[in-house]
Every structure is written in C-alpha cells, then in structure tokens.
C-alpha cells in the first residue's frame, strides 16, 4: 500500500497506462512541461517525450477533434480539458463526432478517447472554473461518463478508461485532488461501470459521485450520532448506471437522498429519482429527495459555500426523508 493524493494516483495511473501501451498519448493545454495546472500529468513529458505528451494550442475543440483523428489512426489519446467550464468549445466535437462516429461507421471504427475534466467547485475560483457539466454528457448516447471520488478509484479507473474502446468522459473532483488515501497499486480495481457501496447502512441510502461522496460519508458519520445508519453509494459510473447496486440498496433501506453539485433541475439526480421510483416503488418509505446546486449559474467564490451541498444540507434532507 502507498499513500497518494488523488492527483498523484491519477498521475500514477496515467504513467502505468503509458508504460503498458505505446499508443497511449496525453494531450491538452499545459500538460507537458508544467505537468498540468493540477499537476496530474507531472513528469510524463520528461519521461515519455513530446510526441506522447502533447502541449496543444489553446483550443478545446482542436484538442478533441485531433484526438479523434489520432484515435482513427490507432492511438489512444487522453485529453485534458483544463477546467469544466472550458469543455463547451469542445462540446460540438464531443457530441456530434466523438459520441456518434462508431455508430456512423456501423461499428468498424472505435474511438478510445478519454476526456479528463477536473470538475466541481469549492476551490475559490473565478467563473467557469467550478462547474458540474456531467448531465450534458450523460444525455449523449455513445459516451460513457464516469466520476472518480478517491485516490484508489482514481488510480484504477483512469487505467480502465484508457483500456476502454469507447469514448469516456472522465470527471475528476478538483477539490479532492489533494486528499490522501492508501492505494494498493497491485490491486485490480472494480470494473469501470460498477457502483460501489462506500459505507454500508440500513436506514437510508445516500447516492453520490465525485466530490460529493466525501461529503456524504461525513454526513453519514454525523448521522450515526443521531442513531441513523446511513448507507453511501458511490456511483462511479453515470452512463451506464449500475442500477443493480442502486436498486438493491434502496430496496433494503427504503429511503434515498441523491446528492450532487450540479443544479437539481433536470440534473442527473432526476434520472436517479425516476428510476428508483420505477424499480423500488413498493419499498419506498419516502420520496427520493435531491440535494444539489440551485437553478443559478455557479456563483462568485464568496458565495459558493451557500451554493454547494454540504454536510448540513445533506443531513437536512436526511431528516426530511424520515418525516414521511
């Protein structure tokens, strides 16, 4: 076991993938000499050279569009979008090309492209640096969308994503980059499309992914003092969704609160609530409740503590779930 931050675990995962497969490339803005603004690609340029670790022009559509071309030539590009809010110039290439080209080719083309996106708020940043755009991509058939929440998953999930023959949108919770945990570098990780019970419990299920997993674990620990036994499920994969783990958990606990940073309105939590209602209706003791961002643009950083779901807002929803 090794103690790693999430950023370092991702870095180790990338390094391992590049060692294993010479077709793996890393590309993006400042990923080379600088090692990325969050240092996730630190040292890769030095060890693998500029042909495999490509500092790109400052153009996100160009990053994804050329990655598609490289993938068509047999490479496995791992693209870094520097911040969540910068993915939109690339949205056209991701949605109209990356997601749809395999179908267009009737399966003759594979696009093993990973799009890494540091996501979420909580770091006191300026506008466009704190967003949670996952629902735009889960709504796009042809993409797989995953979110890591901790160093061990970061290490294994990035390698699984790079091995995938499908395009993957890979969300990294930027405010957790510096969180440390034990990582077993030799352990095989869970398959990429599987959810994980992060904390078992009997009374209520908290569903979360990415940055909110830690918040939910803290909320569950706090609720324990009130005598409530809360289960936390880390979804890990949003598309496909591991509905087996989710339904089994909610069927057992009878109560569910979904937590994400993105706005609640037409957010990913809406899909979860609908599916749980369809599949667990007779087991539910209360409606599925949602905690998330408001129907506002992401606020200036001095307001973000009011915007972001925190331990108290999660516990408030848990309390409400028990009033039914």
């Amino acid at each position: 076991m090794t103690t790693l931050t999430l950023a370092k675990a991702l870095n180790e995962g990338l390094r391992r993938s590049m060692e294993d497969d010479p077709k793996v490339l890393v590309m993006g803005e400042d990923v080379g000499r600088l090692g990325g603004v969050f240092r996730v690609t630190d040292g890769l340029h030095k060890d693998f050279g500029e042909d495999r670790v490509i500092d790109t022009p400052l153009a996100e559509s160009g990053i994804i569009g050329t990655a598609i071309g490289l993938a068509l030539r047999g490479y496995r590009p791992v693209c870094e979008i520097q911040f969540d809010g910068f993915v939109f110039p690339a949205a056209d290439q991701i949605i109209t090309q990356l997601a749809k080209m395999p179908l267009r080719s009737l399966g003759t083309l594979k696009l093993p492209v990973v799009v890494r996106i540091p996501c979420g708020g909580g770091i006191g940043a300026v506008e466009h640096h704190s967003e949670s755009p996952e629902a735009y991509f889960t709504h796009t058939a042809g993409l797989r969308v995953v979110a890591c929440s901790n160093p061990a998953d970061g290490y294994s999930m990035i390698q699984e994503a790079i091995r995938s023959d499908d395009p993957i949108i890979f969300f990294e919770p930027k405010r957790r980059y510096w969180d440390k945990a034990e990582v077993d570098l030799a352990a095989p990780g869970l398959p990429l499309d599987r959810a994980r019970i992060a904390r078992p419990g009997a009374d209520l299920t908290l569903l979360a992914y990415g940055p909110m997993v830690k918040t939910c674990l803290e909320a569950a620990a706090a609720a324990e003092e009130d005598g409530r036994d809360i289960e936390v499920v880390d979804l890990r994969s949003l598309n496909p969704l591991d509905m087996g783990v989710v339904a089994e958990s909610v069927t057992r606990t009878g109560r569910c609160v979904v937590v994400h940073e993105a706005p609640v309105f037409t957010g990913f939590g809406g899909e979860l609530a609908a599916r749980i209602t369809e599949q667990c209706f007779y087991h539910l003791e209360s409606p599925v409740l949602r905690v998330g961002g408001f129907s506002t643009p992401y606020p200036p950083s001095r307001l973000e503590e009011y915007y972001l779901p925190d331990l108290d807002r999660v516990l408030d929803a848990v309390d409400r779930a028990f009033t039914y």
Partner: protein
Amino acid sequence: MTSDAPRGVEAPPELVQLLTPEGERVEHPDYDIELTDEEVRSLYRDLVLVRRVDLEAVALQRQGELGIWASLLGQEAAQIGSGRALTDADMAFPTYREHGVAWCRDVDPVRLLGLFRGVNHGGWDPAEHNFHLYTIVIGSQTLHAVGYAMGMQRDGAEAATIVYFGDGATSQGDVNESFIWASVFNAPVVFFCQNNQWAISEPLEKQTRIPLYKRASGFGFPGVRVDGNDVFACLAVTRKALQNAREGQGPMLIEAFTYRMGAHTTSDDPTRYRVADELEAWKLKDPIERLKAYLFKNQIADQEFFDKIDAEADALGKDVRRRCLEMPDPEPEALFQHVYAAPHALLDEERDQYLTYLAGFER
C-alpha cells in the same frame, strides 16, 4: 459587386490552369504534369461516370427513393483531379459531397446512397478504402484529418492526409483551429477547399473579404488557387502538395475555384438567390466539356470511345438504381447496434424491452 451580379465568372489572374475552358493545354511554371493518353482517357471516364451516378441519385431523390442528395454537379474535376493524386497509403476526409473522391477510393457508389436513403449514417469501412465517412457538421472533419496526419507523423508513415471542405466551412472555428494545429505540428495534411461560390444561399463574400487561398499565409503555410474545373491542374497541384507533405514540408491549402452547378441539395431552390446568367456562364467552363474538347482536338479519343463511355455510364446508372432499390430497410434491432464498442447494460435493457414490446404485435 452587387448581390445580383454573376459570381466567379471572370477567372482570377492567380489561377493555376493547365487546360483552358476551350480545351487548350497551357503551361504553368510551378505546376506541370505529364500524362499518357491512357491516363487522360481514364480521367475523362471518371468524370463522366461520377456525373452519371450523381444524376441518377438526383433522379432517385425526385422519385422518393432518397430522402435528400447533395449533388456534385460542376465539381467533378476538382474531386477526380485531387482524388487521383492520392496514393493507397494516403487518407482522405470528405464532407458529404465528395462522391467523386469516393469513386477514386473505390467506394461502391451504392454505399454512398445508404446515408441519403436513410438506412444508415455511413455504410463503408473507412480503413478499407482510406476514405473516411461523410461528415455532415460543417468543417468538423478538418480537425480529424489533422489528428490523423499527426498519427502518420508519429508512425513515420510515407503518407499524407487530405481533407475536403467548402467555402462556407472556412468560417468555422474548427477549420481555423485545424489550420493552426497543422501549422504548429507541421502535420502532413493537404487542405482541399472547393470554393463553389455558394454556401447554400450565401455567396462567397459573406465568408471572406480576401481570396480564400491567401488565408493560408496568415497561418504560416502556403496556399494556392487552382482552376477547380480543370482536372489536370487539380491533379498536378494536389499531387505536389501531397508529395511535399509526405516529405515533411507540412500543410498546404488548395483553393479549387469551381462552381456548384446544381442546388445545395435536392431540398434547395437556387432560383431564389442567384441569377440564371451565372449558371450559363459557368456552363462554358464545364469540366467534362473542356476535357472532351482536348481529347478530340488532340485525337486522343474518337467518337467510338465517347460512345463506349456513355454506354458504360448508362449501365452504371442503371446498376446503381437497381441496387439502391434493393437496399433493405434495417430491422428495429439496428437502433441499438454499434452505439458502443463494448456491451452497455442500460442500452441492452432498453433493446430487450422494446423488442419484447414489438413482438407483442406479432401474436
């Protein structure tokens, strides 16, 4: 120029031309070409056959057998000239109008019709032909081509990539980004812009205030304007650009100055936005007529040859029609196929439920 004046009728002085509209062979100091009589006859054959396929496709659309068709009428020389410049190892990225390039890459014309008939979104294997799938979003493929060329660079391949786009596409961000990337990485890519004067209803001056080929210099690579209705010039210029790219000299922009003689697609009505005189003027520069005149004048081909090609074209048209009509509609299950390379639990579940639902009607 007023909005009603005919466009592009006067040949601009900087045009690379090896065959005049009257079928006279002319020299150019930078670009010349030696072709055997057999090669010239074969170019003529290609031009005639792709025009015939195109006409058949327009007819099929008019009869309701295709949902839509994007005609290449008038652009045959630009496509055959550039397409014939490619080696097997080169890779081409088309728009949705490159039926002539597809022909040069041995893609069965019926395969092109699938997309327009609505049985698929693109029915050929790009790797088999080194001809990518049609791209409908304007300009997106330019970035794919540059990325592919960067891959060739990393592979040490003796090959280059060519990417097709139109005058309208030059306004797209992706095309401009692709110019930057190609330049910065010195990628072995040839940008082949068919300036057919019209982006649906918008004339060239809605896209640019300078000749398009001059844009290249701002990005740091050479640009050239070629007579897009002159198959010799298109072949010569593209061949040289590809060779330069293969040798590591980086990208080049070719502006093929041509004319969209038909509508943008079969859904379009050009009488609403352009004057009839313009089409009449361009008919005098027809790419096939000028080559036919050259063949006649130089006694490279006789009437028997032309009759034989016409008969071959008719047979091809009939064959394309027959096989288009025979194309089966896809089964409902095809909805769910090829969305992902690996199994996807959610999609599999939706498929199973829907097929069960549909089966309920068969009882």
